[in-house]
């Protein structure tokens, strides 16, 4: 009987923890949170079990996107330090298992969403999975430096889906929430890609810092922050939120702009000297959590 150390790990059935890792749980947390906020700010409420199911479906769909993304990008992930230890490039799982898991999870989430809430929400959920996998991962990401700009739409779906799951129709506020995440994605990802650009270059991914240079990316981050801040504050003057949200969004967006300006002014080219970029990346995650949390609090204070 061969010992475990002498055996190719891929020949073993994958550990359940590796299936969990395929779903990118940390990314999923932000997706679930934004979907939950979309659901909570809706003017009507679902029974708790249906609300829970809607959020579960959004989480499962996000997990499916993560699994299919890793199934498709196994060669790219193997070339990047940040992703080389994932189950597929590390050889702890075979590709077919990841594909079956991703497709199964995605199909199940769409079906359950349709049965539990409504089919418009299910169609939106299916569209978000297909957009992320086919448009972003397969088409845009390996081809254009604008991959994050257009691909950001995939991550912007959850609040819209959460709202539609409750109401069954579109409205101005969830479309604004969609716009906020859509415009937030480029500064968020470009801040990250600045200090891991050598990874992207090694993997042949045409991220903006690799293709257009560090200076150009820093300016783009600042310019994209301006419409993002405008979209973040917009619900207040449009009468879709109260003063609590309006003031909080203005303060949070102002800090974002200051950090983006620091990035634009930075001249460092070595990742070790990119504190401004690392601060902006960390703050951008906090920003989205805080903005959506305040919006929910504001709506509940109004009721």
């Amino acid at each position, binding site marked *: 009987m061969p010992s475990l150390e002498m055996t190719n790990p891929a020949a*073993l059935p994958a550990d359940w923890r590796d299936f969990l890792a395929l779903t990118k749980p940390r990314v999923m947390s932000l997706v679930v949170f934004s979907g939950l906020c979309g659901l909570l700010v809706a003017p009507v409420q679902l029974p708790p079990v249906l609300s829970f199911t809607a959020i579960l479906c959004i989480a499962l769909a996000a997990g499916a996107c993560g699994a299919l993304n890793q199934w498709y990008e196994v060669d790219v992930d193997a070339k990047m330090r940040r992703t080389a230890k994932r189950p597929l490039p590390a050889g702890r799982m075979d590709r077919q298992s990841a594909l079956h898991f991703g497709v199964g999870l995605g199909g199940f989430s769409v079906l359950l969403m349709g049965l539990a809430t409504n089919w418009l929400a299910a169609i939106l959920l299916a569209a978000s999975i297909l957009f992320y996998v086919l448009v972003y991962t397969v088409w845009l990401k390996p081809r254009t430096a604008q991959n994050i700009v257009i691909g950001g739409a995939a991550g912007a779906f959850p609040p819209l889906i959460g709202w539609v799951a409750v109401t069954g129709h579109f409205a101005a506020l969830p479309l604004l929430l969609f716009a906020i995440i859509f415009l937030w994605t480029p500064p968020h990802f470009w801040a990250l890609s600045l200090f891991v650009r050598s990874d992207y270059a090694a993997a042949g991914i045409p991220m903006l810092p690799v293709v257009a240079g560090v200076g150009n990316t820093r300016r783009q981050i600042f310019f994209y922050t301006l419409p993002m801040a405008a979209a973040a504050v917009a619900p207040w003057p449009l009468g879709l939120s109260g003063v609590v949200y309006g003031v909080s969004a203005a303060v949070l967006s102002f800090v974002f702009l200051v950090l983006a300006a620091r990035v634009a002014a930075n001249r460092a080219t070595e990742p070790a000297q990119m504190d401004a970029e690392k601060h902006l990346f960390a703050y951008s995650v906090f920003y989205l959590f805080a903005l959506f949390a305040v919006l929910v609090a504001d709506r509940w204070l109004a009721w």
Partner: protein
Amino acid sequence: MRLEDEVVRRQRARARIVALLLGAFVVLLFLITIAKTGMNW
């Protein structure tokens, strides 16, 4: 650890997880049915 032992350990762990998830799904479907028929708990 022998390869065969590790295969069995992983298969058992996965079978337990799948059983738990299927059980949870049955409960969830029951609750969804109750909610959809208007008996909100």
